[in-house]
């Protein structure tokens, strides 16, 4: 597999992509280890309110207006971001790939209808549609994930459709048809693996934008009320912006670093997988 080794090599040689991957590793580890590092509900009151950061050894990042541990909140908040980011992207990928592959492979009227469907979804401002969907269904991690997945598939559908259209007539597909392979087998085993590079690059951007959407929902008070999230921490810290700005600054920094890491990784993947677009 010389091709794969070069791809991996290109990513490893790219310092910004490595930095992105390192930050992401920390975020994912915090999400996984949160119940071990900070057992108990991070929404519990554990100390006096408005403990400033770096003043107390037990609560390193201080406490909020109710006396909840800020660091515990940030570490547990990673769970919601990682979960919603990955799950909603998986839903978006699934819907987008199914629609894009069908449209591109079958063509004709089916293609026209599916392109029209994509255009209809693109006519809705995504964030507004998410707000409407979540407030109709009552906010929870499941409904937020479904709502973000529902609005995020259109880009993937367009990419996959374009790839399928260009590959449908290639020799290897015609060869597979001659061998008598079924349509589903050709779609999944022959064409789909070849569409992966652009899809992988877009996936990192989708996870980043899903995390941003979840945080904006939680900031507006539409997050899962039983779970702490970076957006909800920023939302509740907003009232103390003049006296305790750290309540907004700290979870915001965690949020920005995670999203930045995903975008750095996306850029690195783009350079590695699409060598033609590499920075000259």
């Amino acid at each position, binding site marked *: 597999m010389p091709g794969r080794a070069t791809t991996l090599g290109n990513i490893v040689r790219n310092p*910004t992509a490595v930095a992105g991957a390192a930050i992401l590793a920390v975020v994912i580890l915090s999400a996984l280890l949160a119940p071990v590092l900070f057992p108990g509900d991070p929404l519990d009151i554990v100390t006096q309110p408005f403990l400033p950061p770096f003043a107390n050894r037990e609560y390193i990042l201080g406490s909020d207006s109710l006396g909840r541990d800020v660091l515990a909140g940030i570490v547990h908040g990673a769970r919601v971001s990682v979960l919603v980011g990955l799950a909603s992207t998986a839903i978006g990928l699934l819907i987008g790939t199914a629609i894009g592959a069908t449209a591109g492979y079958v063509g004709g009227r089916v293609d026209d209808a599916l392109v029209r469907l994509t255009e209809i979804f693109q006519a809705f*401002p995504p*964030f*507004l549609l998410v707000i*409407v969907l979540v*407030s109709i269904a009552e906010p929870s991690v499941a409904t937020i994930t479904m709502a973000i997945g529902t609005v995020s598939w259109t880009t993937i559908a367009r990419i996959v459709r374009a790839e399928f259209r260009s590959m449908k007539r290639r020799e290897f597909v015609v060869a597979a048809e001659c061998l008598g392979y079924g349509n589903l087998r050709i779609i999944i085993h022959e064409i789909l693996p070849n569409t992966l590079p652009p899809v992988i690059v877009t996936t990192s951007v989708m996870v980043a934008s899903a995390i941003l959407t979840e945080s904006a929902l939680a900031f507006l008070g539409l997050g899962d009320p039983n779970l702490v999230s970076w957006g909800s921490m920023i939302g509740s810290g907003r009232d103390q912006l003049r006296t305790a700005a750290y309540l907004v600054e700290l979870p*915001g920094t965690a949020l*920005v670093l995670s999203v930045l890491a995903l975008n750095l990784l996306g850029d690195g993947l783009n350079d590695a997988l699409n060598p033609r677009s590499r*920075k000259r």
Partner: protein
Amino acid sequence: MVISRMMISHRVAATIRRTLIQAVPTLCAVIIIDFFLLKLAPGDAADAFAAEAGSATAETMTALRVHFGLDQPLLVQFVAYIDNLLHMSLGFSPLYGMPVSQLIAERLPGSLELMATALVFALVIGIAIGVLMASFAGGPMDRVLSIVTLLFYSVPGFWVGLMLIVAFSVRLGWLPSGGFETIGGGLTGWAAFVDRVRHLVLPATSLALFFVAIYARLVRASMLEVRDQDYVRTASAKGLSRRAITLRHMLWNAVIPLTTVAGMHVGAILGGAVVVETVFSWPGLGRLAFEAMLKRDFSVLLGILLLSSLIVILVNMLVDLLQAWLDPRIELR
């Protein structure tokens, strides 16, 4: 000259026909989806009315449902909804005690002002950064700016807004932290204009940063794409200055993708406005949507959703027209 002008007008007419053929069914589908979302929403206008009034008997609830036509079959309600839309009516908001369309008309100018300012700001700064990055491609300036734009791309608008308030309102005290104008300031003329601009700076910046990043990266990529092409080399061979080549020949290549992307992101700007308007107490549609959501006034929420889709469709039609006019090679589909 005359012939080419006739061809342009023919092309524009054909583009209008084609986009209308595409836009009208899309709009119909949007209306249908909006109607069924409204029906899926928990509670109806009668519930909202009763909640606002504090208490209601079963009889008054029934009377309200008859009044709003909610006792009718779904299809009849749908026809009534379409009829209302054709009369520019988006229903009645029990919460605000006025028609939704009137409510939206009051808030629309504020949102448009904010979004237009943010868009112009994003285009100007984004193009400037993109030209700088492309001119020094591969150098330290390019690297630093590409990290900066990636940061802009990663920062949520509401957090930028709060950080700008901390820096420029709380710490430095230079700019107001929210609102649309100084209330009770009694300002007129130039002073009133300056006051409005001062209120606009922070929210417009918060909304614009994400798009600054997108436009800057797009301009850089489009300019580098043509750097080695024959017509740029010819321009350089005939002795044009570097600046003239950069601006007139290379930057021009970015105009079409810029308009495409700007059109694609209208919906995103509308969504961003919801959050930014909430942070800055800006009296626009976004904040109205947020208030409606909090009080579960779905008629208002869906009215805004429908209007936003309409704006998205219209802007994309305009972009298509603009492109047909700018670039005769763009194929008529």
